[in-house]
C-alpha cells in the first residue's frame, strides 16, 4: 500500500486527505498535540518522516522544526519508515533476568532481521524497548498495540510465524 523504499515517504492523495483531517483537529491546544500526532503516525506506515511533518506544519501552523524536535524526542515516533508491524522487545532488567535475550534471538531469527531493521517487504520492524509495565508476565513484547506475555523462544517464534502467515488480525 505505502511506498517505503526510499528515505522519505510518498504521501498518497488518500493519505494526504486523512492526515489533513486529523491535523486540523489541532485548535491551538498544545495538550492535544501528542494524541493527534500519534493518530497521524498510524496512517503513515508507523513513521513520521519529513514529508508528513511538512504537511502537518502547513495545516496546524506549528513550525516544521518544532514538530521534528517533538517526534524525534519520543520513542513511539520514528522519522524513518517502519514496517506495518512494529515488534518491540522489552529489554529492561526484569525481562532481562527472565530470559528476554533468548526470546529476542528467536524473533530475530524468525523475521530474518536484527533490532533496528525492517524486513525487505516492509512488513516488520524489530526494535528494543524499555519496560512495558507487564513485568509480572516477563518476558514480554508489544506488536503495534498488542502485548504478548510470558514468552519463551519457542512461543515467540510461533507467534512471529502467525504474523508472517497473516493469521493475526491487524492491530
Amino acid at each position: 500500500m505505502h511506498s517505503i523504499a526510499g528515505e522519505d515517504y510518498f504521501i498518497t492523495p488518500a493519505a494526504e486527505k486523512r492526515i489533513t483531517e486529523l491535523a486540523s483537529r489541532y485548535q491551538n491546544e498544545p495538550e492535544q498535540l501528542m494524541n493527534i500526532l500519534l493518530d497521524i503516525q498510524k496512517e503513515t506506515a508507523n513513521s513520521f518522516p519529513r514529508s508528513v511533518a511538512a504537511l502537518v506544519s502547513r495545516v496546524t501552523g506549528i513550525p516544521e522544526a518544532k514538530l521534528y524536535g517533538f517526534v524525534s524526542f519520543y520513542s513511539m515516533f520514528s522519522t524513518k519508515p517502519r514496517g506495518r508491524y512494529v515488534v518491540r522487545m522489552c529489554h529492561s532488567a526484569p525481562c532481562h533476568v527472565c530470559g528476554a535475550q533468548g526470546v529476542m534471538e528467536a524473533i530475530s531469527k524468525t523475521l530474518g532481521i536484527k533490532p533496528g531493521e525492517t524486513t525487505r517487504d516492509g512488513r516488520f520492524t524489530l526494535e528494543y524497548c524499555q519496560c512495558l509495565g507487564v513485568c509480572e508476565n516477563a518476558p514480554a513484547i508489544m506488536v503495534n498495540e498488542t502485548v504478548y506475555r510470558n514468552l519463551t523462544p519457542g512461543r515467540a517464534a510461533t507467534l512471529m510465524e502467525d504474523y508472517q502467515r497473516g493469521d493475526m488480525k491487524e492491530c
Partner: protein
Amino acid sequence: MLSETRIVLRNLGRIDPVSVQDYQKQGGYGPLRKALSMKTEEVIAEMKRSGLRGRGGAGFPVWKKWSFTASAQSGQKYVICNADEGEPGTNKDRVILSGDPNSVFEGMAIAAYAVGADRGFLYLRREYPYVAPILDQALENARAEGCLGKNILGSSFSFDIEVISGGGAYVCGEETALIESIEGRRGEPRFKPPYPGVSGLYGRPTVVNNVETLANVPVILQRGGEWFSGIGVPNCTGTKVFTLCGNITQKGVFEYPMGTNLRDIYETHGGVKDNFDLRGFMLGGQSGNLINAGQMDLSMDIDSCQQAESVLGTGTIMVIDDRNDILDIVQNIMSFFIEESCGKCTPCREGNIRILEILRRISGGEGRMEDLTLLEDLAGMMNVACLCGLGQNSSVAVITSLHNFREVYVKAIERGRRA
C-alpha cells in the same frame, strides 16, 4: 505467611472497572460528597492527620503539596495524575487504573476541590494503549452520573479530567518533564524552583500526584486520617502496593502495610524458583538499590529503606537468582539510563556512558582496582551536578552493588590480571 491489606486495591476484581454504579455500591463518591461539605482547609487537615506521603518515588507529604497550591493565587489551577509508570519493574499503576479507575478520578476530584482546581489531566504512558478505552468509558459513565463535570453531585464545584497520552519517554515521569510534554514539547525537565505547586502547567499552580497516592485519598476521607495513620509505621503510614518480579515464584502486584519485612514478602510468594539460589534483590526500580541475599531483613518503608542505604521508590521488588550475573545486570541498567537520558545536561548525557564503559572494561577482564574508586567519584559527581532525578540516581545500582557485591567486581578484576 502474610495476607494482604487491601486499601488501594480495595475494589480490585470485585467491580466492573468502568461501572460508576458498581463503584458507588462499594461506597465510592461518598468521600467526595463528604469533602464537598467540608471547608477546603479541613480536607487538607484530614490529609495531614493521615500522614499520607507520595507513592511516585519521592515520598513527599501530600497535605504539604496540596497546601502550596491551595494558597497560591491564580484564576486557573490544575491537578495532574502521573500515570507514566516508566520505572522498570513497576506494574501497580496499570493494575489500579485498569481495575478501579474511579478511585483515582475521585482522588483527583478531592484534590481539585481542596486546592481550587477545575481541570485535571491524567498522563497515561503510551505503553498502556489498552488501558485508555477503560479510562474513557469510566470517565463517560462518571460524568453521566454527575460525579465529574459541571456542578458535581449537585454542588457548585466543577471538575473534569482529560486523558493525555505519553510518547514513550521514561523521563516524562519526572513531574516537570511531564508538564513540558503535556504542553506539546519535548519532555525535558525544568529547573526547580519554581515547583509545579506554584508554577506548573502553563505556568499555573498545579498538583502532580501519582496514581497510587490518589487512590488512597477517598479512603482517607471516608474512614478518617486517624484510622489511616494507624496502618503502617510512624511517619510512613498506610500500605504500599508492591510489584514482585524477576526470578520469584509468584510474580504480581500485592498490597502490604508500610514497614512489612522484605523476607516475609519474599517467603510468602514462594522465593526463587526450581532449586536455584537467591543472589539478591533490586529494590525501588532501576534507580534503586542492589542488595544481597543476606540483607533481606529490611523494613519496607520509606525511612527505614533510606537508613539502610536502600530505597522504597515505587515499591518494585526484583528478585535475582544465581543464574544471573550482577555485573551483567548493572550494565543492563546503565544502558537503560543512556537510552532514557534526555540529554539536557552534560553530566548525565556523558556520565552514564562513561560508567558503562568502565563496567564493560571490568567485566571484560581489563579492569583495575582504581576503576572502583573512579566509579564512586563519577557517581558522586553526577549526584550533585545533574538537573533531575534521572541523572542524580542513575548510578545508585552500580554503587550499591559495589558495596553489597564487592567480591564480584574484585573477582572480575583479578581474573583479568591473571589472564
